[in-house]
């Protein structure tokens, strides 16, 4: 078992957008994909996943469509909309800025002041 990290508030939507941007996914697939691309580090609380998906769909950042799953079951697949793609780009840029700023701050040594 890998050590898992808690999600920062507000990052769930961004991760979901990223997950479905790679390939249309059903809900369970989103869970697996996030686990996979975070190298098994991030564990999404399953109870918040679906409300988040419905919220993103409501805001027209993703759309849903019924399709066939790998084991031939009917499943709801989510894909990114152009608006979602823009949002993901913005959030990624914002996150990167924030992360590098925090990293820089945390790496500051007394000599640098």
């Amino acid at each position, binding site marked *: 078992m890998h050590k898992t990290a808690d999600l920062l508030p507000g990052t769930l939507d961004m991760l979901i957008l990223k997950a479905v941007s790679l390939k249309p996914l*059903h*809900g*369970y697939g989103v869970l697996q994909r996030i686990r996979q691309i975070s190298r098994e580090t991030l564990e999404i609380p*399953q*109870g918040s996943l679906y*409300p988040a998906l419905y919220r993103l*769909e*409501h805001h027209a950042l993703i759309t849903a469509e019924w399709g066939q799953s790998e084991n031939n079951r*009917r499943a*709801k697949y989510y894909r990114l909309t152009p608006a979602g793609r823009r949002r993901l780009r913005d959030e990624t840029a914002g996150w990167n800025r924030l992360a590098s700023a925090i990293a820089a701050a945390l790496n500051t040594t007394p000599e640098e002041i």
Partner: protein
Amino acid sequence: MFKRWRSLLRVLAQRRDFEAGMSEELRFHLEQNIAELVRSGMSRQEAARQARMELGSFDSVKEDCREERGLHLFDEFRRELRYAARLLCKTPGFTATALLTLAVCLGANLTIFAVVDSILLRPLPFPHPDRLVTIFNTYPKAGVERDGSSITNYYERRGRLAAFTSLSIYAYSTEIIGEPGSTEREQTMRVSPDFFATLGLGPAIGRTFTDEETTSQTDHVAILSDAFWRQHFNATSAVIGEQIRVNSVPRTVIGVLPPNFRFLSSDARVFLPLASRPEDRTPANRHSGGNVIQMIARLQPTASLAQAQSELDAQNAVLELDDPQAKMIADAGFRSLIVPLHADHVAAIRPTLLLLQAAALALLLIGAVNLVNLLLVRASSRVKELAVRQALGASRGHVISEVVVETTLLTLSGGLLGLAVGAGGIQALRAFATDHLPLGSRIAFDLRLALVSLAASIVLGIAFAVPVAWFNLRRHLDSALQSESRGGTTTRATQFLRHGFIVSQIALALMLLAGAGLLGLSLQRALAVSPGFQSDHVLTGQILLPYADYPDGPSRLAFLSNLLDHVQHLPGVLSAGVVSNVPFSGRNGKSAATVAGHVRQPGESARGHYSYAVAGDYFRSMGFSLRAGRFLSADDSRRSDGVCVVDEDFAAYYWPHGNAIGQRLWEGGEPGKADDAFTVVGVVGGVKQAGLTADEAQGAVYYPYIYHVTDSVFVTVRTSLRPESLALTLQKAVRQVDPNIPVSDIRSMNTRIADSLVARRSPALLAGLFSAIALLLTAIGTYGVLSYAVAQRRREIGLRMALGAQPAQIRRQFFYVSLRLLAAGTLLGLIGAWLTGQAMQAILFHVPALNLSIFAAATSVMALLTLAACLLPSHRAAHISPLAALADD
């Protein structure tokens, strides 16, 4: 934002699919998770448990998902709606009373509002209708308030007044249209070439009239209404250039109007040029309007009414400088007035309509007060339930929204029923009164009205919720929980509120009742006025003598004498006559007469009188009484020296000492040659030409037909039979003399009088109906509140009776309460009724605002009803059994 609304709406529309999809998605998730856990080595049972734990409860995930889609508010609303509907169903008596009250009150308002809307509010169907005005001459000091305009006015003003973009004249007329053998009398309008340009709406096909087409040699053209075109030409566009026969003369069709063209209240189906001779356009003819020709104009976009008026006044002043009649005209107080076309057209009916709308609103107010009272009673029976729920954590917002949902559900349902009542009312109005209302054909029940009334019901629902929510949220709830009775207690404030409502109800109902009484009395007084003749057993009908066949006086007189000879010998006919204008015809133009030897006092101007041309036995057929001298006879049209008959009003004005016979007078405002004078040979009873309520004794002069030739005449027939039964016979008789002349507007004289009073009768009937409903509502309200008070104080009464109080004492106590309410309501109501009477003065006939007998009658009806309504509850109070009262709860 827009996208989110669309998403919510989509989900709401497919709610079932949404819920099913959500369940399926979550189930799929669970199965996938279980399969994976089993693959990683767990037992199936263990995996299922683990998967369920990781996802959490289905219901809470689903609820979160719904909330993300904005569905939770909607679900909450649905829950409250269902709850409210259940509550209303549990009290069918209350709900039925409330719905019925709302339906009647809202329906009455909708009906009246439909009329107000179509007549007063909706703009005329022309572009920029607010720029359209009408201009008329007035000679107030000669007793002529309104005289239309003259052809001279038109030619003098056209293009010379900068405040107007366009100015034109028109006259209503009727014409005989069709080929020989199949003629019909049609409503027509004669209009100047720029008439359609002034209105801003012209022919859809073809062209308008030109200036070259305004002489009687060149005016053989016509423009058709859409309806006429469809009926007679099958809506073919090849109609241009076709011929139609108007008064036996062929005219070329040059245009067809669009389907929505309707000028004010006119039903005209054919439009002809208003032709005139050069001499009609001279200054001598400037003041010859006679209320036949009317003028309309369109104001410049930037010009104000006052600007236009001062421009017109200036022009009039210049023109009068060299007018030979200038002195007389100035003495008569002559002016030309400019008023907005729409407002002017509806001015007469406006006060009546506003009054009826006020009455309908008062009715709604009474109904609303009733409902609020009933709702409060209901709320106080649920005080304990609400107290418990609030104690258990129901929020204030929740309590308020619950009340709002309940009252709005009630008023909206009532509003829907009201739509049905209103639609019925509008239908009834259309069937009975449309002909008598200006712009009448526009009254319709449409989507706009439906939306307005539904919006009003929602507003009403929210208004109802205010006192109920206030009641529910007040801090009496703690005590309600402690008190032992299920109903809870009444505080002074709520009792005061309830009693205040009853008082205002009584006051409003009394106002309505007194108002209706005043209208009824006014109608009765109008009906009691004698028209000046015996109106029963007289049939009248209008005929028009076409110029082509009857160009001059002798040929027309020959036709009329021939016709009268024929009619007089019909079975059932006692006497028959002909007159140029029958009383109550709606045409009330006046003209001047000059009496020989009459010297005008300083400031006195020539007076306008009704002038009639008569032939045959007109006076006898109408039942005029002879005051002096003799009636005119057929011979008077054949003799060379003119004679005439005047009415007693005319005689009394000029010859107050009663020596009218043998006096001489001239037609027109100036003395003429001695040979042209008419000698008065008889005095007859005064006539009410303009209607029973026309107070001014205007005076009338009757000339032999040959001296006052008109092409439009009325035949009057006195019969021993029912007048209407003679209609066909009369029509046949006219056709026998000339098959091309139809008779129109065939009505008995009594019908004409009744029709002239419709503007008084309909409001009186409606007000009567409204006040009857108001009385019923007030009775229900008083009864409801008192019975509730009795029920609530059952224990107290029981206790007092157990301690020795007499039933009579208890009864008296409740009786006194209602007496106090009645006294307060009556006092306020009488003040209101007096104010209402003042506001109604404009439409009352010989009835003062303060009519004691009406007020007394209304007060006693109100008192009887209120006391009757409290009889039953106080009787019930007096017969409460102490044992039973103390035992229950």
